């Protein structure tokens, strides 16, 4: 079984992750309202926005006290030094900067997103000059102190907007394509893309070409740049999209005028790869490649996504649904070794959000569905090195070539958050699951330009495929997530969050005779926007 993982594991990871690969995301230039034909700007300008974020949290009993899986793993890391301890603590920070550099004239700009100390754990880079952390005189700069997540050029032309470079990718609710723009987001998608967006008939139409992976490269003679040595191993994506969309400002204005906002959009994206050079990404890549490194791949994936939003004064109903299908004609990563049958996938996911103002409160119901795969484990973040999951495992490869060639679990983007503990931390994301999430929000105090708001949600969830859960039962759990949010007039946002997860039968450990016990979380997040 482990041998199979060595042959095909990473290839299956590619299949499993195609859902997050083929996606459109044009809201970087559309939804942000930048597609405005600005007036002349003689000198150019620099616009900087962003935030500093600090988070501290305590995670209590995230392993659910249910012992180890058949693969010998806990559901979540447990304290190393004290076997009886339950709590893990941590704090991290991020300084996000979004720069827009406008050139003189109209509509030409360069955009950069740079995150400094991105999700850096406090105290994680102690100065060890004197030998031990206890003698640390302070913190060293981490190796990756600066992460450039976006860098692209944008030109507003008479017929539309042209962008090229590494761009954020966001669509709809962010269930599939998520740019990581939310306050509490950790990741975010970016695509190396050339895109053109044009307004026609009160809609926006977009066409994009992504170079998703350039494949094997080697240095030129001067070692100043890299040369793509095999065109057929390039992974490329083509996306067409249309949408009827209002900017947040227009939406607000229309709502105040008593008008109903009907917005919608759809995209179709296709990704393909003819051949592959696994030597370029497995192990230590050689400086030179040879013809024998090239293997057949035949990867093809198509993603389609529909988004709809109905809104007005005091209400919002928003829905996104996506269908993803893919096949890999040849899943083997080893040159000279071929499987007979292709690996395939069909995945479906949908998410619903709603808000209704009732007196001073806002009530709503969110819900979601992510298709499952009957193989053991959720397949949220499978590791090729672990091989196919065993019954009772939390995660693992969903295909087991050559005997099981399908990967059908749909994975929500991990930055599309529906809870605090179960999907966000223990499983990793929503996959192979159904959930219902009633929620409420109301102000507690509003004085002097500062507001204190209560937010609460309860999430009930079930697995789509019972065989995917550690115990074989479908009922995953019920989670209660209350929080207090403080917003000051000058921008400071403080959130004090608590969560209690009551795990249900899915996480019991019948082999060990242990039932899963509740988990808790407390988190304080401070946001300093600028």
């Amino acid at each position, binding site marked *: *079984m*482990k*041998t199979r*993982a*060595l*042959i095909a594991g990473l290839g299956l990871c590619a299949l499993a992750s195609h859902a997050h690969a083929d996606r459109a995301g044009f809201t970087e230039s559309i939804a942000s309202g930048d597609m405005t034909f600005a007036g002349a700007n003689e000198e150019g300008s620099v616009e900087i926005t962003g935030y500093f974020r600090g988070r501290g949290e305590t995670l*209590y*009993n995230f*392993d659910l*006290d*249910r*012992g*180890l*899986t058949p*693969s*010998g*793993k*806990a*559901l979540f890391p*447990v*304290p190393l030094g004290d*076997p009886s*301890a*339950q709590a893990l603590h941590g704090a991290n920070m991020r300084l996000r900067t979004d720069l827009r550099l406008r050139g003189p004239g109209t509509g030409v700009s360069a955009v950069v997103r740079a995150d400094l100390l991105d999700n850096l754990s406090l105290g994680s880079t102690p100065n060890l000059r004197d030998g031990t952390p206890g003698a640390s005189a302070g913190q060293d700069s981490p190796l990756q102190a600066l992460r450039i997540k976006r860098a692209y050029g944008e030109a507003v032309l008479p017929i539309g907007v042209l962008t090229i470079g590494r761009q954020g990718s966001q669509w709809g609710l962010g269930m599939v394509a998520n740019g990581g723009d939310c306050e509490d987001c950790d990741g975010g998608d970016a695509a190396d893309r050339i895109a053109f967006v044009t307004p026609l008939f009160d809609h926006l139409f977009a066409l994009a070409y992504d170079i998703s992976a350039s494949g094997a490269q080697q240095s030129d003679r001067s070692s100043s740049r890299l040369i793509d040595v095999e065109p057929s191993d390039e992974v490329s994506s083509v996306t067409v999209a249309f949408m009827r969309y209002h900017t947040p400002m227009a939406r607000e204005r229309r709502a105040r005028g008593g008008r109903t906002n009907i917005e919608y959009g759809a995209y179709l994206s296709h990704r393909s790869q003819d051949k592959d050079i696994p*030597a370029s990404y*497995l*192990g230590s890549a050689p400086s030179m490649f*040879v*013809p*024998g*490194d090239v293997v057949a791949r035949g990867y093809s994936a198509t993603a389609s996504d529909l988004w709809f939003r109905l809104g007005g004064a005091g209400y919002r109903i928003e829905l996104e649904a996506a269908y993803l299908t893919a096949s890999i004609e040849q899943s*083997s990563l*080893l*040159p*000279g*070794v*071929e*499987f*007979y049958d292709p690996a395939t996938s069909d995945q479906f996911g949908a998410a619903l959000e709603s808000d209704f103002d009732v007196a001073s409160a806002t009530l709503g119901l969110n819900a979601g569905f992510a298709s499952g795969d009957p193989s053991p484990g959720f397949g949220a973040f499978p*590791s090729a*090195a*672990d*091989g196919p999951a065993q019954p009772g495992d939390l995660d693992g490869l969903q295909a087991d*070539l*050559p*005997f099981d060639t399908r990967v059908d679990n749909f994975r929500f983007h991990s930055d599309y958050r529906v809870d605090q503990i179960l999907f966000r931390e223990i499983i990793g994301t929503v996959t192979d699951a159904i959930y219902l999430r009633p929620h409420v929000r109301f102000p507690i105090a509003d004085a002097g330009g500062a507001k204190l708001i209560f937010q609460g949600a309860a999430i009930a969830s079930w697995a789509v495929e019972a065989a995917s859960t550690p115990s074989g*039962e479908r*009922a995953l759990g*019920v989670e*209660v997530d209350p929080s207090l949010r403080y917003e000051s007039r000058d921008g400071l946002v403080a959130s004090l969050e608590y969560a*209690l997860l*009551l795990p*249900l*039968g899915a996480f*019991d450990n019948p082999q060990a005779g*242990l039932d899963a*016990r*509740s*988990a*808790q979380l407390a988190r304080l997040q401070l946001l300093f926007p600028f």
Partner: protein
Amino acid sequence: MGSTAMRFQALAISLVLPLVAQTLAACSDNRTPFGPDGGPPPTSDCLPDLDDQLTRAEMPTFLGTVVSYLVAQNTTVDTSGSDLDLSAQVAGERKYALEASALGEQWFAAEFPASSIVVPLDFEGQAVGILQSSDEAIRLVGIASTQEDYTLLHYQTPIDLYRFPLTVGQSFVTESAVVGQFEAVPYNGSDRYAVEVTSIDSVALPHLRFTHSFRVHTEVTSDSGAAGLVIKRQQLSLVSECFGEIARVVSQDDESEANFSDAAELWRFSL
């Protein structure tokens, strides 16, 4: 389902009573031990480069790693041509899990260098070969039974099974006296191994196709020392980069044709 229903009831209670009830329920010692999970399976940086030669690094040895083979006896095999189809199910075949191991605590350990590797010679686990491995060759230095003090044979001159790098056209012969005891009877004979790498073939197995496999033909002549008792066997091994031997066909005794079809044993790598 019973436990689920009970916990829905517990949830209702905890919502009526403050959530403190459940909060306190988890305030006990952790019942989940640290899970080292054994680490990932042994892997190698070996990636086939299909450069028409097989180096020692392209035949990695994983001690303790189980490899499965489908084994059939007394069957007919078409070994002609450069596109071998060994994918069909064979009547009576069985799947065996075999693994190489260190000399360690084997009963014959004192008889061989400590760096020796022990590999199964038969699918029933009754006989093992003792190998020495270097960058230049893999050599057979002895044969032993797993049953203590039953069979133990030494090759006075180590037999070269593979010389590296394997290339088409390579051939060599090793002869050695074989001494010791065989099935509890003293033995004093000689073996002759004639090895030739004849071609690079495509081989279809039950689950996989190997497009670049070295066809290694070995003729073994065993003289037991008893009057007139000389046995000649042909063996076809198919060896792939980073996998090693993926298939083996062993002839019946006293087979003289290199391209034989009457096989005493057929071994095929299996998933």
